[in-house]
Protein backbone atom coordinates (compact mmCIF):
# COMPACT_ATOMS: atom_id res chain seq x y z
CA UNK A 1 0.00 0.00 0.00
CA UNK A 2 1.56 3.23 -1.14
CA UNK A 3 0.66 5.29 1.91
CA UNK A 4 1.93 2.67 4.28
CA UNK A 5 5.23 2.38 2.40
CA UNK A 6 5.70 6.13 2.50
CA UNK A 7 4.76 6.50 6.12
CA UNK A 8 2.54 9.21 7.52
CA UNK A 9 5.47 11.23 8.82
CA UNK A 10 7.11 11.61 5.43
CA UNK A 11 5.54 14.82 4.25
CA UNK A 12 7.72 15.24 1.16
CA UNK A 13 8.81 18.78 0.32
CA UNK A 14 8.96 20.73 3.55
CA UNK A 15 9.03 24.39 2.56
CA UNK A 16 5.69 26.00 1.94
CA UNK A 17 6.69 27.15 -1.54
CA UNK A 18 7.97 23.75 -2.56
CA UNK A 19 4.84 22.10 -1.32
CA UNK A 20 2.61 24.61 -3.07
CA UNK A 21 4.59 23.89 -6.23
CA UNK A 22 3.99 20.20 -5.68
CA UNK A 23 0.34 20.93 -5.17
CA UNK A 24 0.15 22.90 -8.41
CA UNK A 25 1.26 19.78 -10.21
CA UNK A 26 -1.30 17.51 -8.60
CA UNK A 27 -4.56 18.70 -7.13
CA UNK A 28 -4.77 21.85 -9.22
CA UNK A 29 -3.53 20.27 -12.45
CA UNK A 30 -5.14 21.74 -15.55
CA UNK A 31 -6.28 24.89 -13.80
CA UNK A 32 -4.71 28.34 -13.87
CA UNK A 33 -2.23 28.94 -11.02
CA UNK A 34 -3.98 30.33 -7.98
CA UNK A 35 -7.38 29.25 -9.20
CA UNK A 36 -8.05 26.80 -6.39
CA UNK A 37 -7.45 26.50 -2.68
CA UNK A 38 -6.75 22.98 -1.47
CA UNK A 39 -7.81 21.72 1.93
CA UNK A 40 -4.19 20.72 2.64
CA UNK A 41 -0.85 21.49 1.06
CA UNK A 42 -0.22 17.95 -0.11
CA UNK A 43 -2.03 14.60 -0.28
CA UNK A 44 0.34 13.31 2.40
CA UNK A 45 -1.24 15.77 4.83
CA UNK A 46 -4.41 13.68 4.76
CA UNK A 47 -3.91 10.99 7.36
CA UNK A 48 -5.86 7.87 6.52
CA UNK A 49 -6.84 5.67 9.45
CA UNK A 50 -8.79 2.42 9.26
CA UNK A 51 -11.05 2.13 12.31
CA UNK A 52 -14.67 1.74 13.37
CA UNK A 53 -17.33 -0.91 13.42
CA UNK A 54 -19.53 -2.41 10.70
CA UNK A 55 -21.75 -0.02 8.76
CA UNK A 56 -21.52 2.30 5.76
CA UNK A 57 -20.18 5.27 7.67
CA UNK A 58 -16.81 6.97 7.78
CA UNK A 59 -15.64 10.34 9.06
CA UNK A 60 -13.25 13.18 8.40
CA UNK A 61 -11.78 15.38 11.10
CA UNK A 62 -10.44 18.82 10.09
CA UNK A 63 -7.43 20.05 11.98
CA UNK A 64 -7.07 23.42 13.67
CA UNK A 65 -5.19 26.11 11.70
CA UNK A 66 -1.70 26.69 13.07
CA UNK A 67 -0.56 23.26 14.13
CA UNK A 68 0.96 20.06 12.79
CA UNK A 69 0.17 16.53 13.83
CA UNK A 70 2.92 14.76 15.76
CA UNK A 71 3.45 11.04 16.13
CA UNK A 72 5.28 9.85 19.22
CA UNK A 73 6.53 6.39 19.94
CA UNK A 74 4.95 4.82 23.00
CA UNK A 75 7.66 3.47 25.25
CA UNK A 76 6.54 0.22 26.83
CA UNK A 77 7.76 -0.19 30.42
Amino acid sequence: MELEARGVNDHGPTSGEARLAALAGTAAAGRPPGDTVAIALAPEDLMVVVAGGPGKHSAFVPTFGATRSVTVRVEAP
Partner: protein
Amino acid sequence: MASTLASKRHHVEDGTDPIEFCFEQGWSDGLPVVPPTEARVRAMLQAVRVAPDHQVAYIEHRAVAVTAEKVAVNAVMAGCRPEYMPVVVAAVKGIGDPRWNYHGPGTSTGGAGVLLIVNGPIRRTLDVNCGDNLFGPGWRANLTIGRALRLVMRNVCGSRPGTLDRGTLGHPGRLSYVIGENEEESPWPPLHVERGFRPEQSTVTVMAAEGPRQFYNQLSNTPEGVLTTLADDMRISGSVMGQPNYAVVLAGEHMRTIAGGGWGKKEVRQFLWERTHNSHAHLRRTHRMAGALQPGDEERLRPLVESPDDILVVAAGGRAGTFSAYIPGWGSKRSSQAVTVAIDA
Protein backbone atom coordinates in the same frame (compact mmCIF):
# COMPACT_ATOMS: atom_id res chain seq x y z
CA MET B 1 -44.58 7.69 49.00
CA ALA B 2 -43.21 4.14 48.64
CA SER B 3 -39.53 4.32 49.39
CA THR B 4 -38.21 0.79 49.03
CA LEU B 5 -35.37 0.58 46.57
CA ALA B 6 -35.71 -2.36 44.21
CA SER B 7 -32.24 -2.48 42.72
CA LYS B 8 -30.04 -5.45 43.47
CA ARG B 9 -27.59 -4.80 46.32
CA HIS B 10 -23.90 -5.54 45.85
CA HIS B 11 -21.49 -5.94 48.71
CA VAL B 12 -17.98 -4.77 47.97
CA GLU B 13 -15.41 -6.67 49.99
CA ASP B 14 -12.76 -4.86 52.00
CA GLY B 15 -9.73 -4.32 49.87
CA THR B 16 -11.78 -4.02 46.68
CA ASP B 17 -11.95 -0.60 45.07
CA PRO B 18 -15.66 0.25 44.61
CA ILE B 19 -14.88 2.15 41.42
CA GLU B 20 -13.07 -0.84 39.94
CA PHE B 21 -15.99 -3.01 41.09
CA CYS B 22 -18.36 -0.83 39.04
CA PHE B 23 -16.10 -1.22 36.00
CA GLU B 24 -16.19 -4.99 36.44
CA GLN B 25 -19.98 -4.97 36.48
CA GLY B 26 -20.03 -3.28 33.06
CA TRP B 27 -21.80 -0.17 34.35
CA SER B 28 -19.28 2.34 33.08
CA ASP B 29 -18.96 4.25 29.82
CA GLY B 30 -15.20 3.94 30.14
CA LEU B 31 -14.68 6.62 32.76
CA PRO B 32 -14.73 6.02 36.51
CA VAL B 33 -18.21 6.22 38.01
CA VAL B 34 -19.34 7.33 41.44
CA PRO B 35 -20.46 4.19 43.32
CA PRO B 36 -24.26 4.39 43.69
CA THR B 37 -24.71 3.92 47.41
CA GLU B 38 -28.21 3.93 48.86
CA ALA B 39 -27.70 7.33 50.49
CA ARG B 40 -26.60 8.90 47.21
CA VAL B 41 -29.49 7.36 45.27
CA ARG B 42 -32.00 8.54 47.86
CA ALA B 43 -30.61 12.07 47.76
CA MET B 44 -31.09 12.04 43.99
CA LEU B 45 -34.69 10.85 44.34
CA GLN B 46 -35.38 13.41 47.04
CA ALA B 47 -34.41 16.16 44.61
CA VAL B 48 -37.36 15.27 42.36
CA ARG B 49 -39.69 14.09 45.15
CA VAL B 50 -40.89 10.97 43.42
CA ALA B 51 -41.14 7.37 44.52
CA PRO B 52 -38.37 5.02 43.37
CA ASP B 53 -40.84 2.99 41.31
CA HIS B 54 -42.27 6.03 39.52
CA GLN B 55 -42.12 5.39 35.79
CA VAL B 56 -40.25 8.23 34.09
CA ALA B 57 -40.43 6.79 30.57
CA TYR B 58 -41.39 3.66 28.73
CA ILE B 59 -39.10 2.66 25.89
CA GLU B 60 -41.49 0.81 23.63
CA HIS B 61 -38.90 -0.77 21.36
CA ARG B 62 -37.08 -2.27 24.32
CA ALA B 63 -40.19 -2.93 26.41
CA VAL B 64 -38.35 -1.19 29.23
CA ALA B 65 -39.97 0.92 31.92
CA VAL B 66 -37.39 3.40 33.15
CA THR B 67 -38.06 4.09 36.82
CA ALA B 68 -36.96 7.09 38.82
CA GLU B 69 -34.75 4.77 40.88
CA LYS B 70 -32.82 3.62 37.82
CA VAL B 71 -32.45 7.18 36.61
CA ALA B 72 -31.18 8.15 40.07
CA VAL B 73 -28.67 5.30 40.16
CA ASN B 74 -27.20 6.34 36.83
CA ALA B 75 -27.24 10.03 37.70
CA VAL B 76 -25.19 9.20 40.79
CA MET B 77 -22.74 7.14 38.76
CA ALA B 78 -22.39 9.96 36.22
CA GLY B 79 -21.34 12.39 38.95
CA CYS B 80 -24.49 14.53 39.03
CA ARG B 81 -25.35 16.70 41.95
CA PRO B 82 -28.89 15.97 43.22
CA GLU B 83 -30.15 19.30 41.91
CA TYR B 84 -29.33 18.17 38.35
CA MET B 85 -31.80 15.31 38.65
CA PRO B 86 -34.85 17.23 37.27
CA VAL B 87 -32.94 17.88 34.06
CA VAL B 88 -31.90 14.24 33.74
CA VAL B 89 -35.49 13.14 34.34
CA ALA B 90 -36.77 15.53 31.66
CA ALA B 91 -34.14 14.27 29.21
CA VAL B 92 -35.15 10.66 29.84
CA LYS B 93 -38.78 11.64 29.18
CA GLY B 94 -37.58 13.18 25.93
CA ILE B 95 -35.88 10.06 24.60
CA GLY B 96 -38.91 8.04 25.69
CA ASP B 97 -41.21 10.23 23.59
CA PRO B 98 -42.48 8.33 20.51
CA ARG B 99 -41.48 11.25 18.31
CA TRP B 100 -37.85 10.83 19.34
CA ASN B 101 -38.28 7.17 18.48
CA TYR B 102 -35.63 5.49 20.64
CA HIS B 103 -34.85 2.45 18.53
CA GLY B 104 -33.46 4.35 15.53
CA PRO B 105 -31.07 6.84 17.09
CA GLY B 106 -30.32 4.49 19.98
CA THR B 107 -29.27 1.59 17.79
CA SER B 108 -28.33 2.73 14.28
CA THR B 109 -24.88 2.44 12.75
CA GLY B 110 -25.23 6.20 12.27
CA GLY B 111 -24.04 6.59 15.85
CA ALA B 112 -26.16 9.55 16.90
CA GLY B 113 -25.56 11.34 20.16
CA VAL B 114 -28.35 12.97 22.16
CA LEU B 115 -27.90 16.72 21.98
CA LEU B 116 -29.51 18.35 25.02
CA ILE B 117 -30.31 22.07 24.77
CA VAL B 118 -31.24 23.52 28.16
CA ASN B 119 -33.38 26.65 28.33
CA GLY B 120 -34.91 28.73 31.08
CA PRO B 121 -33.88 29.86 34.56
CA ILE B 122 -32.49 26.47 35.60
CA ARG B 123 -29.45 27.07 33.40
CA ARG B 124 -28.25 29.74 35.80
CA THR B 125 -29.30 27.87 38.93
CA LEU B 126 -27.25 24.83 37.90
CA ASP B 127 -24.44 26.73 36.12
CA VAL B 128 -25.08 25.09 32.76
CA ASN B 129 -22.49 26.48 30.37
CA CYS B 130 -23.87 28.65 27.58
CA GLY B 131 -20.65 30.45 26.66
CA ASP B 132 -16.94 29.83 26.20
CA ASN B 133 -15.90 26.34 25.16
CA LEU B 134 -19.55 25.47 24.72
CA PHE B 135 -19.13 21.87 23.59
CA GLY B 136 -15.94 21.33 25.58
CA PRO B 137 -15.07 20.32 29.11
CA GLY B 138 -15.12 22.42 32.25
CA TRP B 139 -18.68 22.44 33.55
CA ARG B 140 -19.97 19.74 35.84
CA ALA B 141 -23.63 20.21 34.92
CA ASN B 142 -23.00 19.93 31.18
CA LEU B 143 -20.73 16.93 31.49
CA THR B 144 -22.62 14.88 34.04
CA ILE B 145 -26.22 15.47 32.93
CA GLY B 146 -25.49 14.19 29.44
CA ARG B 147 -23.40 11.36 30.83
CA ALA B 148 -26.26 10.32 33.10
CA LEU B 149 -28.59 10.10 30.11
CA ARG B 150 -26.15 7.94 28.17
CA LEU B 151 -25.65 5.68 31.21
CA VAL B 152 -29.43 5.24 31.42
CA MET B 153 -29.42 4.24 27.75
CA ARG B 154 -26.59 1.80 28.41
CA ASN B 155 -27.55 0.31 31.73
CA VAL B 156 -31.33 0.48 31.65
CA CYS B 157 -32.24 0.37 27.96
CA GLY B 158 -29.46 -2.02 26.94
CA SER B 159 -27.80 0.29 24.40
CA ARG B 160 -24.31 -1.11 24.67
CA PRO B 161 -21.73 -0.75 21.90
CA GLY B 162 -21.56 -3.82 19.70
CA THR B 163 -24.95 -5.21 20.76
CA LEU B 164 -27.99 -2.93 20.82
CA ASP B 165 -25.87 0.12 20.06
CA ARG B 166 -24.40 -0.50 16.62
CA GLY B 167 -22.82 2.90 16.05
CA THR B 168 -20.08 2.45 13.45
CA LEU B 169 -18.07 5.43 14.66
CA GLY B 170 -20.14 7.27 17.25
CA HIS B 171 -18.69 10.62 18.28
CA PRO B 172 -17.38 12.28 21.45
CA GLY B 173 -20.78 13.86 22.10
CA ARG B 174 -22.04 10.42 23.01
CA LEU B 175 -20.29 10.80 26.34
CA SER B 176 -22.16 14.04 27.02
CA TYR B 177 -23.66 16.61 24.67
CA VAL B 178 -25.27 19.34 26.75
CA ILE B 179 -25.43 23.05 26.03
CA GLY B 180 -27.47 25.93 27.37
CA GLU B 181 -28.75 28.84 25.31
CA ASN B 182 -27.19 32.17 26.19
CA GLU B 183 -30.55 33.79 26.81
CA GLU B 184 -29.10 36.75 28.71
CA GLU B 185 -27.03 38.00 25.78
CA SER B 186 -29.22 36.76 22.96
CA PRO B 187 -31.26 39.39 21.11
CA TRP B 188 -33.79 36.71 20.12
CA PRO B 189 -36.52 34.65 21.79
CA PRO B 190 -35.04 31.50 23.28
CA LEU B 191 -35.59 28.11 21.70
CA HIS B 192 -38.12 26.90 24.26
CA VAL B 193 -40.32 29.97 23.78
CA GLU B 194 -40.27 29.40 20.04
CA ARG B 195 -41.37 25.85 20.77
CA GLY B 196 -44.38 26.91 22.83
CA PHE B 197 -43.12 27.26 26.41
CA ARG B 198 -43.13 30.31 28.63
CA PRO B 199 -39.88 32.23 29.22
CA GLU B 200 -39.95 31.46 32.95
CA GLN B 201 -40.24 27.73 32.33
CA SER B 202 -37.15 25.58 32.13
CA THR B 203 -36.93 22.95 29.42
CA VAL B 204 -34.62 20.50 27.78
CA THR B 205 -34.73 19.79 24.05
CA VAL B 206 -33.42 16.39 22.98
CA MET B 207 -32.24 15.94 19.43
CA ALA B 208 -30.62 12.86 17.87
CA ALA B 209 -27.50 14.45 16.54
CA GLU B 210 -24.26 14.01 14.70
CA GLY B 211 -21.18 15.80 16.00
CA PRO B 212 -20.91 19.61 15.96
CA ARG B 213 -19.38 21.11 12.83
CA GLN B 214 -17.73 24.44 13.36
CA PHE B 215 -17.59 27.03 10.62
CA TYR B 216 -15.62 30.21 10.33
CA ASN B 217 -16.34 33.58 8.78
CA GLN B 218 -14.29 36.57 9.87
CA LEU B 219 -14.83 38.62 6.72
CA SER B 220 -18.48 39.48 6.77
CA ASN B 221 -20.26 42.16 8.72
CA THR B 222 -23.68 41.33 7.35
CA PRO B 223 -26.16 38.53 8.09
CA GLU B 224 -26.09 37.48 4.45
CA GLY B 225 -22.31 37.12 4.48
CA VAL B 226 -22.07 35.00 7.62
CA LEU B 227 -25.04 32.86 6.71
CA THR B 228 -23.91 32.31 3.13
CA THR B 229 -20.79 30.62 4.48
CA LEU B 230 -22.87 28.59 6.88
CA ALA B 231 -25.35 27.55 4.18
CA ASP B 232 -22.53 26.42 1.90
CA ASP B 233 -21.12 24.23 4.67
CA MET B 234 -24.52 22.90 5.74
CA ARG B 235 -25.70 22.06 2.25
CA ILE B 236 -23.04 19.47 1.52
CA SER B 237 -23.71 17.72 4.82
CA GLY B 238 -27.24 16.79 3.79
CA SER B 239 -28.37 13.23 3.24
CA VAL B 240 -30.57 11.99 0.43
CA MET B 241 -33.52 11.45 2.76
CA GLY B 242 -33.39 14.89 4.33
CA GLN B 243 -32.59 15.25 8.01
CA PRO B 244 -35.34 15.71 10.61
CA ASN B 245 -33.64 18.72 12.19
CA TYR B 246 -30.50 20.78 12.15
CA ALA B 247 -29.31 22.77 15.12
CA VAL B 248 -27.51 26.01 14.32
CA VAL B 249 -25.50 27.43 17.21
CA LEU B 250 -24.61 31.07 16.70
CA ALA B 251 -21.84 32.34 18.97
CA GLY B 252 -21.20 35.88 20.18
CA GLU B 253 -19.65 37.68 17.21
CA HIS B 254 -21.84 36.06 14.58
CA MET B 255 -24.89 36.52 16.78
CA ARG B 256 -24.17 40.23 17.06
CA THR B 257 -23.49 40.61 13.34
CA ILE B 258 -26.73 38.89 12.39
CA ALA B 259 -28.82 40.73 14.96
CA GLY B 260 -27.11 43.99 14.00
CA GLY B 261 -28.48 43.55 10.52
CA GLY B 262 -31.96 43.39 11.97
CA TRP B 263 -32.43 39.68 11.45
CA GLY B 264 -34.27 37.41 13.85
CA LYS B 265 -34.23 33.64 14.13
CA LYS B 266 -37.06 33.36 11.62
CA GLU B 267 -35.05 35.17 8.96
CA VAL B 268 -32.01 33.02 9.75
CA ARG B 269 -34.02 29.84 9.30
CA GLN B 270 -35.62 30.99 6.06
CA PHE B 271 -32.30 32.12 4.56
CA LEU B 272 -30.57 28.87 5.45
CA TRP B 273 -33.43 26.66 4.32
CA GLU B 274 -33.64 28.33 0.91
CA ARG B 275 -29.90 28.02 0.30
CA THR B 276 -29.30 24.47 1.41
CA HIS B 277 -31.23 22.55 -1.21
CA ASN B 278 -29.27 19.94 -3.14
CA SER B 279 -30.10 19.11 -6.73
CA HIS B 280 -30.65 15.51 -7.69
CA ALA B 281 -27.82 16.00 -10.15
CA HIS B 282 -25.43 16.93 -7.35
CA LEU B 283 -26.56 14.02 -5.22
CA ARG B 284 -26.03 11.61 -8.11
CA ARG B 285 -22.67 13.05 -9.12
CA THR B 286 -21.41 12.71 -5.59
CA HIS B 287 -22.70 9.14 -5.30
CA ARG B 288 -25.21 9.95 -2.59
CA MET B 289 -28.13 9.07 -4.83
CA ALA B 290 -28.23 5.92 -6.95
CA GLY B 291 -28.54 5.91 -10.71
CA ALA B 292 -27.35 7.84 -13.73
CA LEU B 293 -28.21 11.50 -14.28
CA GLN B 294 -31.77 11.95 -15.49
CA PRO B 295 -33.23 14.83 -17.49
CA GLY B 296 -34.37 17.53 -15.08
CA ASP B 297 -32.02 16.42 -12.27
CA GLU B 298 -30.33 19.83 -12.21
CA GLU B 299 -33.65 21.51 -11.44
CA ARG B 300 -35.08 18.84 -9.14
CA LEU B 301 -34.18 19.94 -5.59
CA ARG B 302 -34.22 18.34 -2.16
CA PRO B 303 -34.22 20.53 0.93
CA LEU B 304 -31.94 19.76 3.83
CA VAL B 305 -34.93 19.61 6.16
CA GLU B 306 -38.63 19.59 5.37
CA SER B 307 -39.39 23.08 6.66
CA PRO B 308 -37.44 26.14 7.88
CA ASP B 309 -38.93 25.46 11.31
CA ASP B 310 -36.94 22.21 11.46
CA ILE B 311 -33.78 24.30 11.87
CA LEU B 312 -33.28 24.95 15.58
CA VAL B 313 -31.44 28.25 16.04
CA VAL B 314 -29.64 28.59 19.37
CA ALA B 315 -27.62 31.58 20.57
CA ALA B 316 -24.68 30.17 22.53
CA GLY B 317 -20.90 30.01 22.64
CA GLY B 318 -18.10 32.41 23.50
CA ARG B 319 -18.29 36.14 23.01
CA ALA B 320 -15.02 36.26 21.09
CA GLY B 321 -14.25 34.51 17.83
CA THR B 322 -15.86 34.40 14.42
CA PHE B 323 -16.98 30.82 14.81
CA SER B 324 -20.35 29.19 15.02
CA ALA B 325 -21.56 25.64 14.46
CA TYR B 326 -24.24 23.52 12.91
CA ILE B 327 -25.30 20.06 13.97
CA PRO B 328 -27.01 17.69 11.56
CA GLY B 329 -29.81 15.66 13.00
CA TRP B 330 -29.72 11.92 12.73
CA GLY B 331 -31.89 10.00 10.25
CA SER B 332 -35.01 11.33 8.59
CA LYS B 333 -38.13 13.05 9.89
CA ARG B 334 -39.89 9.69 10.07
CA SER B 335 -37.00 8.28 12.11
CA SER B 336 -36.61 10.80 14.91
CA GLN B 337 -37.61 14.35 15.76
CA ALA B 338 -36.36 16.81 18.33
CA VAL B 339 -38.58 16.93 21.42
CA THR B 340 -38.77 19.67 24.08
CA VAL B 341 -39.74 18.68 27.61
CA ALA B 342 -40.55 20.92 30.58
CA ILE B 343 -38.24 20.50 33.58
CA ASP B 344 -40.20 20.08 36.80
CA ALA B 345 -37.94 21.83 39.28
